[in-house]
């Protein structure tokens, strides 16, 4: 009984960590531009696909992973430079639609560059499951959670301890004042896309040995990350992390105790619930500001 619950919990926390990374990606771009970047899931896909391809071509995994992260960040920067930046000054909704278009484009490009097949990666440290209180835990799950923890810690350090990170926070709070301080607000948006791409790519790489990946693997992961961000409160970093873990655990419990047919529905039920009953999410700013 408890072993079963623990089993679902492990599986939920593993996928939750990926959703948390994707949710953070949404939050960072949302904070810098109020745009919801629906190509976030494609960053996850590109990270996983690129690593799988390079490992299959004989590159050692660590090198392949680093190159894949760099490549995904380059895609993120290109997305900002060539799709979002030219529309600067346009309505936010228009830019959101641009990112939907970009996600379709990236999926198409991945289909052409690779194929429609599933690609796999070997587990980073073997397939021997660990036994814990009657439940089994795959070592790759520890990689997923560990990578998420490391990346989140690095992000925390960046935003709280570096001048550029603080400048990004300042820009998200008040763009005009940031400009008046001489902060290069356009670079802030470029860096936001690069960071979000990095988050997606890391998630994509560590999860591929568990779920495999293909050109459209990003759709579902991106939407789950979006529900994580909405549940936590759009723009809240802590919210995205908590939201991601909650979405992951909720869908693992639902598919375990109800039916695995409901697994994907859970994330969307959560979005609807949040939008109806608590539009600002768990940690989101309330709709008022002190003047």
């Amino acid at each position, binding site marked *: 009984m408890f072993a079963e619950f623990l089993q679902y919990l492990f599986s939920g926390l593993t996928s939750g960590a990926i959703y948390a990374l994707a949710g953070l990606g949404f939050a960072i771009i949302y904070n810098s531009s109020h745009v919801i970047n629906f190509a976030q899931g494609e960053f996850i896909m590109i990270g996983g696909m690129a690593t799988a391809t390079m490992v299959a071509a004989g590159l050692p995994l660590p090198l392949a992973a680093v190159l894949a992260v760099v490549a995904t960040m380059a895609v993120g920067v290109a997305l900002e430079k060539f799709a979002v930046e030219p529309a600067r000054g346009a309505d936010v909704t228009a830019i959101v639609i641009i990112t939907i278009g970009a996600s379709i484009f990236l999926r198409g490009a991945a289909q052409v560059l690779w194929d429609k097949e599933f690609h796999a990666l070997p587990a980073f440290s073997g397939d021997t499951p660990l036994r814990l209180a009657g439940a089994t835990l795959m070592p790759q799950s520890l990689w997923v959670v560990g990578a998420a923890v490391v990346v989140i810690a690095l992000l925390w350090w960046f935003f709280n301890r570096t001048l550029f990170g603080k*400048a990004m926070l*300042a820009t998200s709070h008040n763009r*005009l*004042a940031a400009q008046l*301080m*001489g902060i290069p607000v356009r670079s802030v948006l470029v860096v936001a896309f690069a960071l979000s791409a990095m988050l997606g790519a890391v998630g994509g790489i560590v999860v591929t040995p568990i779920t495999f990946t293909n050109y459209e693997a990003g759709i579902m992961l991106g939407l789950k990350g979006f529900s994580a961000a909405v549940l936590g409160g759009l723009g809240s970093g802590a919210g995205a992390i908590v939201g991601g873990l909650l979405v992951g655990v909720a869908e693992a419990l639902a598919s375990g105790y109800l039916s695995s047919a409901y697994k994907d529905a859970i994330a969307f039920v959560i979005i609807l619930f949040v939008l109806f009953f608590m539009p600002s999410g768990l940690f989101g700013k309330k709709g008022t500001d002190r003047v």
Partner: protein
Amino acid sequence: MLLEISDLSSHYGRILALKGIDLRIEQGELVALVGANGAGKTTLLRCLSGVQPLSGGAIRFDGADISRMSAEGRVAAGIAQVPEGRQVFGPLSVEDNLRLGAYRRRGKGVAADMERMYALFPILRDKRHLPAGTLSGGQQQMLAIARALMGAPRLLLLDEPSMGLAPLLVAEIFQTVQDLKRQGTTIFLVEQNATAALAIADRGYVLETGAVVMEGTGAELLADDKVQAAYLGL
């Protein structure tokens, strides 16, 4: 001459907000710009800071044409603005706000200047680890001024520093402005509170629907019948 604006015009969309502005500020001067709400005062300051495009004319700063320079470039060149409504970075600490004011500067002068700001506004030292959003209106205004001064500006633009403050605080802020001038800072002060601004200004300009309609020394403008009728409520 530190700042020279010639024949400047600017549009919001198709609406002409500023037309044919000529204005100059000498090194060390305190120049006031007064005028009613909507006259274009804030727009002029935004043009000077490079966050509002010009549609004609030129801005020269210390002899160089900066009309097309980026906002970052102007801060680096020495133009700092205290925006209308203070606009401090609410979620960030007081100290981080000050540190970001010096974003364009590198080197060790920054720490010394931070100490100078705490000496100028001791309340900011007491609250340096608190989020700026928790400060009172007057304290936020002090922080906004200190933040701009952290950029070691050669020209300080002040947009409505007295707005929304209690009379006692207004007096304190204007005292600070005078102190800064005495220490040699060149100041361009934009105010709806025309009496207080003209009383401390070396020279002043009156802006009306996007154009300069009068200029003179602070005392001349204060004594002028038309200015009195229109802006001083006398």
